[in-house]
């Protein structure tokens, strides 16, 4: 414990150097500014801003990314409340109540409870991350390749099959990602796979190209085709920004409950913030003394989901930093950012690059404070960003999106790949395929394959290794249970129905 505290203190020494503080500030500001843009979620924000960090040292770059990650989420809430266009599924709950509040002239308190709630939840979740991470690292240090592989299979299945509305479409997205992850040179043997001799494909498909293709190009095609002729009303901020005493009284229990819901969900591979925000919304609706206000702008319905969203987003960093396993699309892109610097997150990172990891964690505390200080005073500026006409907005988004892909190899091939992924993203959105499993499959697939082959090399090709080691066997059993459970429940229900 005291060891953790010491490590965290040295982390603050890193995060509070003027230059790193500056990168943190640049990160949260850029993250909020881009995250505010309608249709730009956190994953796309991080992916589009990735090229900006090419010149920074790893620590500075990752601190900036932590800021972008948090800022993007704050920005997204503002958009949701004022425009009612949730940039990501985790914001849908906020849209329900926050936009209604704005329509009733209470945009100010809605934005305030969202910002302060995010700060409270983010800070508590960061404390929990600080305490939990070293414990997970302890356990993870004992993991061998077999355990890692089984853990990744578990993550694949929860993200693709258990979440989402359709198991088969989730798995299809995952396998598309896995297939794309195979493209390039096999690291162990140097064998070229699925690259057709195209030089740009030899070092694999960059996760940024896939993410930007699906999230930016695919979205732009979709929104242009199906939503661009729609008129959207932006709610004005009238009245006070401040929360009344009653608003405070109703908000703080919601923040705390939401943190308790959001953080655990973030740490397990449960696809990020979508489930906890809805759980928090349902909880608040149930516990509220004013259930009649839900659907018409109940402040608990904004306070809870927003806090849950932030707590989950921080929780996602636990498996990402300690195990190297991304459990949301945004985390997958953060992992790509790490890899760009030749850093592979995992338990060893805490030992070999302690200053970097703890500097990053300390910068999360700093980032939360910066966002609270920046966000409410600058709200007028964010509203101006929101008012950019759609044609110009999407023109700008695509210029930045293509820039990120092009600057990888200075090659038209990457732009063509980007467009193909854009078409794919259009089809996936139109026919209800989730996108996150594809992004996670692309980046985690090669890591899973490496662990799989390493485990088999150690066991001299005996696949029993995955089933005889207790941790690995337990994880695989849990995975099988997760797949089987919904089917069994359905089967039992059907049989019971027949008997009656």
């Amino acid at each position, binding site marked *: 414990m005291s060891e953790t505290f010491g490590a965290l203190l040295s982390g603050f020494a890193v995060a509070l150097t003027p230059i790193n503080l500056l990168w943190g500030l640049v990160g949260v500001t850029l993250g909020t500014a881009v995250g505010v843009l309608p249709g730009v979620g956190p994953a796309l924000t991080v992916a589009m801003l990735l*090229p*900006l960090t*090419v*010149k920074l040292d790893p620590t500075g770059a990752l601190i900036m990314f932590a800021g972008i990650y948090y800022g993007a989420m704050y920005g997204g809430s503002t958009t949701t409340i004022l425009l009612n266009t949730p940039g990501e599924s985790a914001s849908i709950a906020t849209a329900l109540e926050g936009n209604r509040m704005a329509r009733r002239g209470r945009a100010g308190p809605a934005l305030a409870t969202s910002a302060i709630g995010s700060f409270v939840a983010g800070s508590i979740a960061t404390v929990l991350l600080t305490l939990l991470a070293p414990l997970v690292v302890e356990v993870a240090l004992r993991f061998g390749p077999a355990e890692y592989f089984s853990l990744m299979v578990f993550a694949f299945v929860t993200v693709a099959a258990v979440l989402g*509305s*359709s198991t*088969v*479409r989730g*798995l*299809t997205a995952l*396998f*598309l990602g*896995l*297939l794309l992850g*195979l493209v390039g040179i*096999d690291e162990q*043997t140097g*064998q070229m*796979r*699925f690259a057709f001799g195209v030089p740009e494909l030899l070092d694999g498909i960059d996760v940024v190209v896939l993410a930007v293709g699906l999230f930016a*190009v695919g979205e732009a*095609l979709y*929104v*242009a*085709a*199906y*939503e*661009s*002729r*729609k008129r959207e009303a932006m709610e004005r901020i009238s009245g006070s920004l401040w929360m009344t005493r009653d608003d405070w009284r109703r908000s703080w229990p919601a923040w705390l409950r939401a943190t308790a819901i959001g953080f655990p969900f973030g740490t397990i591979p449960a696809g990020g913030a979508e489930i906890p925000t809805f759980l928090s919304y349902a909880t608040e609706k149930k516990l509220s003394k004013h259930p009649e206000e839900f659907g018409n702008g109940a402040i608990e319905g904004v306070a809870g989901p927003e806090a849950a969203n932030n707590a989950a987003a921080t929780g996602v960093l636990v498996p990402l930093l300690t195990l190297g396993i991304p459990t949301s699309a945004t985390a997958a892109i953060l992992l790509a950012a790490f890899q760009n610097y030749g850093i592979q997150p995992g338990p060893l990172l805490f030992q070999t690059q302690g200053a970097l990891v703890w500097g990053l964690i300390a910068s999360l505390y700093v980032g939360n404070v910066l966002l609270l200080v920046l966000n409410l005073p600058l709200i007028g500026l964010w509203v101006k960003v929101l008012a950019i*006409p*759609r*044609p*110009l907005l*999407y*023109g*700008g988004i*695509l*210029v930045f999106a*293509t*820039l990120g892909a*092009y*600057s990888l190899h200075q090659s*038209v091939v990457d*732009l*063509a790949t980007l*467009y193909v992924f854009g078409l794919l993203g259009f*089809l996936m959105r*139109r*026919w*209800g395929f989730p996108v996150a499993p594809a992004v996670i499959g692309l980046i985690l*697939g090669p890591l899973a*394959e490496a662990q*799989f*082959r390493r485990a*088999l*090399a*150690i066991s*001299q*090709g005996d696949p029993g290794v995955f089933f005889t080691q207790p941790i690995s066997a337990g994880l695989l059993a849990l995975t099988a249970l997760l797949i089987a459970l919904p089917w069994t429940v359905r089967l039992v229900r059907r049989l019971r129905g027949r008997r009656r």
Partner: protein
Amino acid sequence: MPPGLAGARAERVLSLGVLALGIVAAALAWQLPEGGGYARIGPNFVPKLVAAGLILLGLWLLVETFTGGWRSRVPDDPGQRGEHAFVPAAFLWVSAGLLAQMALIHTGGFVLAAAALFACVARGFGSRRWARDLAAGLALGLAVFAFFVHFLNVNLPAGWLRALLGAAGT
């Protein structure tokens, strides 16, 4: 989408697409060498596994189209999704912008390619103000070019504007 491509027919086409992708991947995977080593599996094992998975998923999707359609499907009627009917011109303008950028970037340079992309996308989103859109695209392209080339030292092609932008680009 074109009117004929909706409902079960579209789902069948997409299911066959997944199946075909799996079959092509399998054909390629089977051409990869074994080269097992200690692990007894080589670079071809996981590709075969993934290809098999895609084939199974394609079949599963296809079976669903014959048994009442995909489960929990997205409504075909855009109105039910809170959207308007498919606007082909919008889709094509955004695509044209991306293709124009690919065609221009190594000849006309980054700035002009960005301006063309920007203006076409804006047109796709319903803007009719070509002059304003081109000007905004040029300004954005120039700003990004200056920032990346002079501040981040990332090379971007200057193209036809080389004389104007200096020799910084490639």
